[in-house]
């Protein structure tokens, strides 16, 4: 039964049928052959699969990101980061990473980062004489930090499937995200020394103060989101609504960079972007339900434990599987498909499910940077005008440090669990 389910899905997916339809049709085929499964379950689980208070925050964080991008808030973040880090060797490369880290605290989507900040960053780096493939590769690699530093849309999806606290998961992503930023900056510094890449003159205190004042209201966003969640003032879902309304107030009323007439387009586009992911989560619910009923995950766990009981080795395999699959499949789809299968393995290995969530999301975020299928890669390719192959090759020096951080997060639980253990016991 499991074989038929997976074969049906795989054949349809390879033929190019939309993933949501593949998941639904595979479930229907199996249910037709298994009289114990009522067919109405497919329709019911399409609704209950996304009827989750946690998932409600996905479109709201997406909207916050879109409003900030359209409202020019990304420009202010860029100039602030430039005033602080532009003078280091390879200056705008570091600014690119720091900008992504700040934006990560507001949006939670790698694509929003690559598309919004990417345009500003690549143009500025072009003007300063950086090779275009280097600028595009950093933009792509640094966008992977977006969903690691809270808030994070993939973490919300994982939290909904794994039924863990999204607030704890958010906090768990903070240190790994900062480590990713530092690792990328070290790589940029080394490459810049070898290639003699330019840097800005050191900013004066007055310039730093001005850029800080310009960006001040934007910089409050991460504080409002995480401060609100950690202090218990609001839930992660409510935090997403506060972030969206705050982004709306900033861009429409304070900075006046968005007109009221732009709103219908931005909101409808956000609904469509959300629907692209949610329809897959929705259709995967009956697929996962069949896997659960047929005890697929238990068989997978038993099979793996027969091969080895070495926790570190199994985690290494899981990472390799996720990294390889991440090269070929869209990260949201992978997260939805793999989470129900891998969770029992994590439980049997006594891996904390919060730490495992960070490991999974980090793996899949490296996937957004690696060719042939990587959402950030596609966006940066469009923004920079370079081919996916060119950016993919230039990204190799940045993918290596990201994998280094993944290894640290996998084998040192404290990196992800220290903050949630302190603040959200």
């Amino acid at each position, binding site marked *: 039964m499991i074989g038929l389910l997976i074969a049906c899905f795989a054949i*349809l*997916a*390879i*033929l*190019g*049928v*939309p*993933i*949501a*339809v593949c998941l*639904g*049709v595979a479930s*229907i085929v199996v249910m037709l052959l298994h009289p114990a499964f009522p*067919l*109405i379950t*497919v*329709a*019911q689980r*399409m*609704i209950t699969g*996304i*009827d989750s*208070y946690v*998932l*409600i925050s996905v*479109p*709201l964080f997406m*909207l916050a990101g879109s409003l900030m991008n359209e409202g020019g808030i990304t420009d202010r973040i860029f100039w602030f980061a430039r005033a602080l880090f532009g003078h280091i060797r390879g200056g705008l490369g570091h600014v690119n990473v720091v900008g992504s880290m700040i934006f990560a605290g507001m949006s939670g989507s790698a694509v929003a980062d690559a598309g919004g900040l990417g345009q500003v960053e690549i143009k500025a780096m072009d003007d300063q004489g950086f090779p275009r493939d280097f600028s595009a590769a950093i933009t792509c690699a640094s966008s992977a930090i977006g969903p690691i530093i809270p808030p994070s849309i993939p973490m919300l999806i994982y939290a909904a499937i794994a039924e863990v606290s999204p607030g704890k998961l958010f906090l768990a992503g903070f240190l790994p995200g900062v480590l990713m930023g530092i690792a990328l900056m070290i790589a940029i510094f080394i490459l810049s020394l070898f290639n003699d890449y330019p840097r800005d003159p050191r900013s004066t205190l007055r310039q730093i103060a001005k850029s800080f004042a310009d960006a001040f209201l934007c910089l409050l966003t991460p504080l409002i989101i995480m401060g609100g969640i950690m202090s218990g*003032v*609001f839930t992660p*879902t*409510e935090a*997403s*609504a*506060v972030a*969206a*309304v705050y982004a709306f107030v900033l861009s429409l009323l304070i900075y006046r960079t968005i007109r009221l007439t732009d709103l*219908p387009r931005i*909101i*409808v586009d*956000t*609904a*469509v*972007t*959300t*629907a*692209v992911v*949610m*329809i*897959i989560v*929705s259709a995967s619910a009956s697929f996962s339900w069949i896997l659960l009923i047929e005890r697929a995950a238990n068989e997978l766990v038993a099979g793996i434990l027969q091969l080895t009981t070495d926790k570190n080795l199994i985690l290494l395999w899981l990472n390799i599987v996720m990294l390889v699959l991440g090269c070929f*499949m*869209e990260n*949201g*789809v992978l997260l939805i498909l793999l989470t129900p299968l891998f969770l029992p393995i994590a439980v049997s290995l006594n891996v904390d499910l919060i730490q495992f969530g960070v490991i999974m999301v980090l793996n899949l975020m490296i996937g957004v940077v690696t060719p042939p299928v990587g959402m950030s890669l596609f966006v940066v390719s469009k923004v920079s005008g370079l081919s996916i192959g060119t950016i993919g090759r230039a990204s190799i020096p940045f993918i290596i440090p990201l994998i280094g951080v993944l290894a640290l997060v996998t084998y040192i639980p404290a990196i992800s669990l220290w903050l949630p253990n302190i603040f959200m016991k």
Partner: protein
Amino acid sequence: MRRLALILKRASDTTDRITRWAVFPIAVAFILIVFGGVMTRFVFRTPMVSSEEFARITFLWTCFLGAAICVKRENHIRFEFLDNLLGKARPAFDLAITLVSIAFYLFLIVKGMELFLHVLPTMFPASGFSQAWMYGVLPLSCLMMMVHFAYFIIRDAFRLVGKPLELGEAE
């Protein structure tokens, strides 16, 4: 046949326009309901107990109506490995993919309606609204998708016989 194609295209464009008009106020209501939940609890000290139920309903409507717009824009996620390898067989594949999608969404219309009627008497505990408000969006959005698919079938059929339609870009 071309006349039929034109009628179906207009029907698809109109359905899309109506969907977009519907999504905007629903999405705005959704944002305001979730934000209102925070405001009523912490500013006015009177929690709105039914806000979570309204938020779930409007969220589902936003997602499924958004999915109908995705069908019109043809941007549902799919693997594109074979697209460049297919050459002249591409229109036949496109038609086959459309037919598989139609079969799935038709199934959802039938089973979604059954479910809708089944949950009609069941009420949400806080708001007292029928749960049909939540489940009704499934058959409705799939019906909207069908209008788009009807046009895609005829468009793909014209491509298959080597006479692509030129009816102007979709709105």
